């Protein structure tokens, strides 16, 4: 369940957004992409997910290339994407939003219960239209949706933004449990360095479409080095 990115370049149409990205995330590890807005973190996740074409280089998951695959095929390889923007279907109910993500026919109800368990608020609002939820609740829905289907790799884009600290703590617990129990590989995009370093094993810092720094969280002074890199 390892993810390997080699010499990746991608972008939007004629605009290049990523240059020569190299990244290797070992199976069962948690990695974090750090950097300021516009650095290319979201672009990288979207490219992995097949939403943007690979212009140069390659992305391999479990040894297989993801190049030229469509988003739904990539999703079916066990890669779950939790986007940064509130990516819900606002006119569908909470339950229907979850149903869309649920691909196998069997036992939706049981899986639903399990996914919603950490979020009692959601359980109360199953029949409500997703668009009427508050921002924090919508984020919870995104996460519940990600938990619904067994994943090998979870790509999370800034799930902490706009979320209250208590809910944040809950997210962290859930993700940690997932990683420990199922050895799910997690790649986290974060602007909140504290949260990221608390949670991840490895990190990569991006600036203007390139990876400028990488390391292991447990290394000395990693925090300081990261902050310095970003401050320049």
């Amino acid at each position: 369940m390892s993810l390997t990115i080699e010499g990746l370049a991608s972008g939007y149409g004629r605009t290049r957004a990523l240059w020569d990205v190299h990244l290797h995330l070992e199976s069962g590890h948690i990695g974090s992409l750090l950097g300021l807005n516009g650095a290319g973190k979201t672009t990288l996740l979207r490219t992995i997910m097949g939403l943007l074409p690979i212009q140069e280089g390659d992305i391999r998951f479990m040894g297989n290339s993801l190049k030229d695959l469509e988003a739904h095929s990539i999703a079916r390889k066990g890669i779950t994407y939790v986007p940064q923007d509130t990516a819900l279907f606002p006119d569908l109910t909470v339950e229907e939003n979850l149903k869309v993500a649920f691909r196998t026919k069997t036992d939706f109800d049981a899986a639903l219960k399990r996914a919603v368990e950490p979020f009692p608020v959601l359980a109360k609002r199953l029949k409500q239209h997703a668009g009427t939820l508050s921002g924090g609740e919508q984020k919870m829905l995104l996460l519940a949706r990600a938990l619904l289907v067994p994943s090998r790799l979870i790509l999370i884009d800034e799930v902490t933004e706009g979320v209250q600290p208590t809910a944040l703590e809950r997210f962290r617990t859930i993700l940690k449990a997932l990683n420990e129990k199922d050895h799910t590989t997690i790649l986290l995009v974060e602007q909140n360095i504290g949260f990221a370093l608390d949670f991840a094993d490895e990190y990569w810092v991006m600036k203007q479409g390139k990876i400028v720094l990488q390391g292991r969280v447990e290394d000395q002074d990693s925090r300081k080095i990261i902050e310095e890199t970003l401050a320049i």
Partner: protein
Amino acid sequence: MLFGVLNAASAISILLVTTVGLAIIFGVMGVVNLAHGEFLMLGAYASVIVTSLGFSPWLSLLLAPLMVGLLAVMIEPVLIRYLYGKTMESILATWGLGIVLRQVVELIFGTRHHEAPYPTNAGFALQNVHYSYYRLFIMLVAVLLALALIWIQRKTDLGVITRAVMDNPSLASVLGINVKRVYLSAFAVGSAITGLGGALVAPLVSAFPAMGLSFVTDSFLVILAGGTGSLPGLIGSSALLGATDSIISYLSDPVMGGIVFVILAIVVMTLRSGRELRERTHSG
């Protein structure tokens, strides 16, 4: 009076069965199928072919949607695929498709009218006039079709997936839904239903190559007035426009009915878009 109501109901149900297929295609994929009239026409001709081979007209009601659906599956990868979400191109390209289909049919069958036999000639007497059971049958089909589609949309997984794809195709894709396959299915099903509609109206108007033209504008006006992607809206506008057309045609003549139809559609559209403007977004 009863006659009037029956006529109105008949007009509404004919509108519905000939429009629903188009509404599905437009609603799900954003493709304007201006060859819609020709798909109806093909359904009608399928009926003619089946009955001329000696089979029962009831069978043609089964085979017409299959044949048109099959044709749709063949056309989709060649043409329709390039038109997703592109309004003007789809209008023009499908308009061209309609021309081509019309010419092919003219080549094979000529331009004369081909009669399609009624599946049943039985009827009942209403004030000394014979009212055909067949028209009641069409009404039944319209009602069943509408109910079936609403049920599918609201209560089934297929409905949820389709609504999701309509709402946000890239998000649906990321969640593992093969959006292209959903589009292909929608196009096939929508076309098949249209084929059925054509076979249903064939006995009433008889089949000729240009028959689709009187249906295509009506269908589009009904969809525009009812709001794209809304089944209840479609039913509502069919009811309103169909009933009005029927009444005016009776009081005056079909041309007047046609004119009022168009004007009423404009009025309803304008009133709707006042409310809809709130829901439209131009940027992020």
